[in-house]
């Protein structure tokens, strides 16, 4: 039970609050920041001349998601992220479904970023090229995933300092690419021309929007680090909003630059011997996994330097992101197991290494199955023909993008509903940050603020979920199948354990919240919370007894 777990926490050794504002930011950045390295090429390939519009739409939804996560992580500074918010706001079964969707995302995260990391490295080591040597690419990605799993089982993780360094270097690098790209080679008239000439069909635009959302996945990381962040209630809103802005600026700038940049050198001719625009070159099967590095190499003057280091920096950032998938999946499974949403086996730690070895093995195993599905069309002509017939010939990385978008959209949808629910049912918890534009209303005698932006965000993310279902042949089947199979397993497990199947177990959220705030060092918030609940209790007693 979460409350009892939280109640014991102060007496047991707890996570040290050592994460600084920059540490918290880079924790999230090493996850979300890597997304644009993958998302740019995919969106350009799908949404063509409207890629910037696709990023804008997904970006606005992402702002709403980010604001929701910021509010919730500051109010509930506890490891667990979206899964915990939904669990707390909507109860056990929805907590499971949201957590299960997040787990799907984490497993995809492992494969997609390991895959893309090798794509970026292939710009320096051509034998790793996916199109030229699919078997080599497959084997190397397989080895990377297995290696990350083993390192996590042994308990080796990259240090926070390394994360912070790579994030810092990447921000400088990406800002430089954009600065020099816009400064020397951006032509507004070319942007307008490309948008007019290469505007996609509605179907492709929806496809592009659903892929663009993958450029914004990973805010979970900041929420998950909340328990280790110094002064989380005041630091997390800043780091989250900064992360939202930074990623949004990068995504919108890259997409506009790709559509309106005059390349430094002439581009290679396409397969039919025709000249091709930059955006199409970046979005083709050869480059869509490493679009940022290719774009950087075509930035005038700066491209000479960028071509040397951007593939390597991108590969490292993507590898960190892949590793965060391994770590995050085992961590979420551990937390879900602790609240009896998953079997206790997922809480079991390795006797020697003291790590959740079973969780790591299971979810890395799932990741490898996903890798095989993604790589098969390129490895076997028969499977390629089959995919072409059944799934409109989606390539490997698009298959992974499909599922990533599905998992993210599904879990984010629940987070919005949970936020609305918590505003009504837990109005006593102090919120140092609130989403803007709220309508004050009275609910069961309590004054609550109805979050308009959460509703807008929910509509936005739900529409992206619908786009994903409409446009992604594989995502449409594999995503819901994952959720349905997981839910069946959950129901079976809860029934076997004689736990409430559709209802929630009783939780002492008050005690849990006091302990959360106390262990977060947010003593002022704790005092405020205690005053709020005392007032509410007094009012209830007064209402129950009536006037004397």
């Amino acid at each position: 039970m979460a409350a009892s777990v939280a109640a014991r926490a102060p007496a047991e050794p707890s996570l040290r609050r050592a994460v600084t504002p920059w540490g918290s930011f880079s924790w999230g950045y090493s996850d979300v920041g890597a997304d644009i390295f993958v998302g740019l090429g995919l969106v350009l390939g799908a949404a063509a001349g409207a890629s910037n519009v696709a990023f804008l739409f997904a970006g606005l939804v992402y702002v709403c998601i980010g604001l929701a996560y910021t509010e919730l992580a500051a109010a509930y500074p506890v490891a667990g992220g979206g899964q915990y918010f939904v669990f707390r706001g909507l109860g056990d079964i929805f907590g499971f479904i949201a957590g299960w969707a997040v787990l799907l995302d984490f497993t995809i995260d492992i494969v997609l970023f390991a895959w893309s990391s090798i794509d970026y490295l292939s710009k320096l080591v051509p034998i790793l090229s996916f199109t030229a040597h699919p078997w080599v690419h497959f084997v190397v990605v397989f080895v990377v995933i297995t290696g990350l799993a083993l390192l996590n089982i042994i308990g080796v993780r990259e240090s926070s300092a390394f994360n912070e360094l790579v994030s810092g270097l990447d921000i400088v690098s990406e800002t430089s690419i954009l600065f020099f790209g816009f400064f020397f080679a951006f032509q507004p008239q070319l942007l307008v021309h490309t948008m007019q000439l290469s505007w996609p069909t509605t179907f492709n635009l929806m496809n592009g929007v659903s892929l663009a959302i993958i450029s914004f996945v990973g805010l979970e990381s900041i929420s998950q680090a909340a328990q280790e962040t110094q002064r989380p209630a005041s630091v997390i809103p800043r780091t989250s909003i900064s992360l939202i802005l930074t990623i949004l600026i990068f995504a919108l700038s890259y997409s506009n630059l790709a559509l309106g940049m005059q390349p430094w050198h002439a581009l290679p001719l396409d397969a039919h011997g025709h000249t091709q625009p930059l955006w199409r070159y970046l979005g083709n099967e050869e480059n869509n996994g490493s679009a940022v590095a290719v774009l950087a190499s075509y930035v005038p003057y700066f491209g000479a330097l960028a071509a040397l280091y951007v593939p390597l920096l991108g590969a490292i950032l993507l590898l960190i992101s892949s590793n965060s998938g391994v770590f995050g999946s085992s961590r979420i499974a551990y937390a879900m197991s602790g609240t009896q949403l998953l079997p206790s086996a997922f809480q079991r730690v390795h006797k020697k290494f003291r790590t959740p070895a079973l969780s790591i093995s299971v979810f890395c195993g799932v990741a490898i199955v996903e890798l095989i599905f993604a790589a098969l069309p390129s490895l076997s002509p028969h499977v390629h023909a089959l995919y072409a017939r059944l799934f409109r010939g989606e390539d490997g990385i698009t298959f992974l993008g499909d599922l990533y978008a599905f998992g993210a959209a599904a879990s984010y949808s629940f987070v919005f509903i949970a936020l609305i629910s918590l505003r009504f049912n837990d109005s006593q918890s102090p919120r140092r940050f609130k989403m803007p534009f709220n309508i004050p209303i009275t609910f069961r005698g309590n004054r609550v603020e109805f979050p308009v932006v959460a509703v807008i965000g929910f509509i936005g993310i739900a529409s992206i979920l619908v786009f994903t279902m409409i446009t992604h042949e594989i995502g449409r089947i594999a995503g819901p199948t994952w959720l349905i199979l997981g839910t069946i397993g959950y129901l079976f497990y809860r029934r076997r354990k004689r736990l409430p199947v559709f209802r929630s177990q009783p939780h002492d959220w008050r005690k849990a919240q006091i302990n959360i705030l106390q262990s977060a060092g947010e003593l002022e918030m704790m005092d405020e919370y205690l005053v709020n609940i005392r007032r509410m209790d007094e009012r209830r007693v007064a209402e129950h007894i009536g006037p004397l």
Partner: protein
Amino acid sequence: MHFVPNVAGVTIAFGVLASIAATIYWMLHPPSTASDRAATATERDISEIIGSVIIVFSQEIHSEHMLSLAVRLARRERAELLAAYIIEVPRTLPLDAEMELEHREALGVLQVAESIGRKNNVEILTDVVRTRNVAQGVLELAKRKDAHLIVLGGYREGKYTGAPMARAIEVIASQAPCDVLIGIQGNKGKILTPPVSDKRSKTVPAEQPTQL
């Protein structure tokens, strides 16, 4: 190929640069909590209060172990630091009588003080004061220098461990015109107790002949 920057492109380039820089700057300066504000106010008060610090040495006041602490305090608060060695001249002798051993001891101790100050980038003023009574000498010095803080080390020399506060320290503490910080080394203390190799000045009693 030669590239001529476009006005719109240049504007966007600087816009991207400025917005990223502003975002990161804003992030790194989060609002402070009540605890942070209280801590800052306390530190500010201390820095306003601590203007000059005197660290006192004598035959019976061994402040070597307080030196490092005093130097760090002075550096942090940008306070003036005066290391004073008080030589108690017996009434049987004139005040300016030659007391070779004591003077050498004073020079040694003050040299160590200067060295610690140099390592910590703090300028230490040193002074050897001759007086009939250590306590009175320190009190007069504090008054003359308008000291804000007197730093004293306890008297811990094996047989005196039961009474680490020498008489002079008690007088200074009770009559000082400013704050007094007294550091007593614990039996197994680590913060104020220097490593064995650094105990020269403390373990060599001033009364014993010193090799010149």
